[in-house]
């Protein structure tokens, strides 16, 4: 139904979408996930030409809508959009928000439009708010009216641009259940969302977007349970990390400690954990100290919110040596502390680098 080929979008020098090729078939529910600022919304807005793509082509039912001769308003009627900020027409009642498009664009009689609009308001559970103005509705109610407004135009596809991001957490579910119901009725939808659980059970296909590309795509099972690519994994497992680069023995330990503390605070880790991380890092750096004048050490502290695990990775160049080798250490005190704090310690030699991965208990 929609075929996108080599779509790209630039705002001035800023490249938002690099090269997107995808096909959306009738009846599909597609979730688009990914970190902020990777062009998810822009992609959606390019589909209905609210933002004009810089290059590439979009075919809808075989018609190239980027062709200057294409009747863009007509095309847009077939793929209506639900916005993050609702965008209800504030001078019209809920009902009039629905009927305006039907009477002015579809040429329906006022009576028919009103009748159909009431049905749709019933569908989203807001028939009794038909005469209310947008400023008299809660956020969740506004978004449900906005969805009904889309449906009023009999669209072939609805584009949802973060429909729940501007909502109070208590109102998210009322909007999501309306969308779920549409999915069940076989509506074709493309949904940009940050609600992972929702995306997983409502969609037949998930697009993970990053760096202006469709970075990985697959069924919800593939993407959520078994992501193949590194960034997808980090995103799905909600991994956040801290990197520190040490290139001489005279590094600033206090600055490093401060950064670790800030990181732990941001992830709301318990005090005890924070203390343990600091202790572990200090002991590890003690052990690394003899190497520091001849090698470069990269340290990475990664926290996965989903798995609730903390991972500490040290990588250094140079000859293949496991710094934690008992035989090489002057005493076992440091090692004992480290073994005590870490759940598992793995040594790997890869790409001419020594890598030590320590998993921490929380």
């Amino acid at each position, binding site marked *: 139904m929609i075929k996108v080929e080599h779509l790209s979008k630039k705002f001035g020098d800023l490249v938002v979408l690099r090269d997107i090729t995808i096909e959306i078939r009738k009846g599909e529910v597609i979730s688009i996930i990914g970190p902020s600022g990777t062009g998810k919304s822009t992609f959606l807005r390019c589909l209905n030409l609210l933002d004009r793509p810089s290059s590439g082509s979009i075919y809808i039912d075989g018609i190239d809508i980027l062709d200057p001769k294409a009747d863009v308003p007509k095309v*847009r009627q077939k793929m209506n959009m639900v*916005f993050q900020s609702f965008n209800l027409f504030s001078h019209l009642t809920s009902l009039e928000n629905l009927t305006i498009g039907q009477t002015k664009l579809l040429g329906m009689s006022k009576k028919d439009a009103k009748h159909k609009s009431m049905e749709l308001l019933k569908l989203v559970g807001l028939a009794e708010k038909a005469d209310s*103005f947008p400023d008299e509705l809660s956020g969740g109610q506004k978004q449900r009216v906005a969805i009904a407004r889309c449906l009023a135009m009999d669209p072939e596809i609805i584009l949802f641009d973060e429909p729940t991001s501007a909502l109070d957490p208590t109102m998210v579910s009322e909007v999501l259940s309306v969308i779920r119901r549409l999915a069940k009725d076989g509506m074709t939808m493309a949904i940009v969302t940050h609600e992972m659980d929702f995306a997983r059970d409502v969609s037949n296909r998930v697009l993970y977007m990053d760096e202006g590309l469709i970075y990985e795509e697959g069924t919800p099972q593939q993407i959520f349970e078994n992501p193949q690519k590194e960034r997808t994994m980090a995103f799905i497992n909600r991994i956040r990390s801290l990197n520190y680069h040490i290139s001489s023995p005279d590094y600033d330990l206090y600055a490093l400690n401060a950064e670790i503390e800030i990181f732990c605070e941001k992830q709301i880790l318990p005090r005890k954990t924070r203390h343990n991380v600091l202790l572990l890092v200090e002991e590890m750096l003690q052990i690394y100290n003899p190497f520091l004048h001849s090698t470069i050490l990269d340290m990475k502290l990664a926290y996965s919110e989903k798995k609730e695990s903390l991972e500490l990775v040290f990588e250094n160049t140079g000859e293949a040596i496991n710094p934690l080798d008992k035989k090489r250490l002057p005493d076992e005190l440091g090692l004992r502390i480290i073994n005590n704090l870490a759940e598992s310690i793995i040594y790997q030699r890869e790409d001419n680098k020594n890598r030590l991965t320590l998993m921490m208990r929380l």
Partner: protein
Amino acid sequence: MKKSAILVFAGLMFVTVLTGCSKTENAITSFDDAKNAKIGVLTGSTGEAIAAAKFPNAQVKSFDDVMDSVAAMKSGQLDAVIVAFPTAIQISKLNPEFWYLPEPLQNEDTAIALKKGNDDLLATLNNIIAELKADGTLESMKNRWFKADLSPYKEMNITLPTEGKLLKIGVSAAREPFSFVDKNGKVTGHDTELARIISAKLQRPVEFSDMKFMALIPALQSGKVDMIVSGMTATDERRKSVDFTQPYFANAQVLFVKKTSVASTTSLSFFKSIANSFHSNIIQEERYLLILDGLKTTVVISVLATVFGTLLGALVCFMRMSKKSVLNLPAKIYISILRGTPVLVVLMLIFYVVFASVNIDPVPVAIIAFGMNFAAYVSEIFRTGIEGVDKGQIEAGIAMGFSGVRTFIYIVLPQTARRILPVYKGEFVSLVKMTSIVGYIAVQDLTKASDIVRSRTFDAFFPLVMVAILYFLISWFLMQSLEYVERITDPKFKRRKMSNA
């Protein structure tokens, strides 16, 4: 409403009391007494030069019209006014507490002014004046118009031609008995009669343009009028810019002052004097008709200028909001020029420069000038209103399948209208009040009508207060209509109405 009526009334009382007690009492009986006096002169008249030459130490104040200077003298702000003696006679007829010093300040020749280079017409006019002088017509005119009593004027019967090239005469009809507006709203007077005689002799139908005295020469030069017959003195300075015929009247400027012993005017009760004032300013000579006509003109100009200005403002706003500099630059320039120029200047520029050689009715010119001024202000009001509409709603309209234009009509416009109306109303009321300057281009609006009444009665208080009240009422009524629009554009109004029903 009742409370405000009481307030207005109290205000009027206060003003009356203030104007009632005159301040200076040192009477002037000779030119010497006037050395350090406060002297009024008429802008553009020879009085200005006389005052500077004869009373170098006096405080000289300029007035546009005689009645303004008389009103100032009545309220004690002036000690004397320099006027032509027929005017002085006229004023003292109605105000016995004034008279003039018999010794003339300067003798002057009153003549008809013509645009330079009109030698044929000049020669013809000179012949006509010589003829009138010889057959005693001028003398008879002088006796009939310049008389000391209040008996009605006897006008000469003149059969005016109806066919032929129009003869446009510039007059300042606020100078009885030279030229003034009679009870039928017709321009009449000594000079006007002369102009009619000339019209008959030249076999050209006559048309009078009544304007401020100082606007006469510009009007002549720009071709708005063919000649000025309005008690104009042939001075050397004026001769530089226009040609004068031989004099048709020997005039003199005199010093108009307060009488030494004011024959105690029978002090009337407050209400009695209000009633008298009402009678002489409104009822006598059916002056209310004049006021009503002026009222009509003011309303017509206000309403049409608002409509024209709103449409033009919408166009300017559209251009201003365009991203193309070909469109938005002219709009920006237009807005800053019109907002930075006094509307009076714009009005006179359009009348005397742009339409200089076109014979155009001044009312449409006023509508254009005020409309242009209004457009500059409202275009920016519109822009603020449009920019205030939530961008998201515009996007929603576009995404729904509305074209840009239809989104504007169905989504942006209804919200803009409601948002801008309160400011727009204010701008509209200032426009109504601003129209009071159209007298400069010979339109008889409400203010001009009151000027005409004042020029006959030399009573400042009543006509001014009445005009103030009338302006208030016009604004109030027109405002009500806009308030109605404001109510119906409130989306919640319909619902409230339904739930009330």
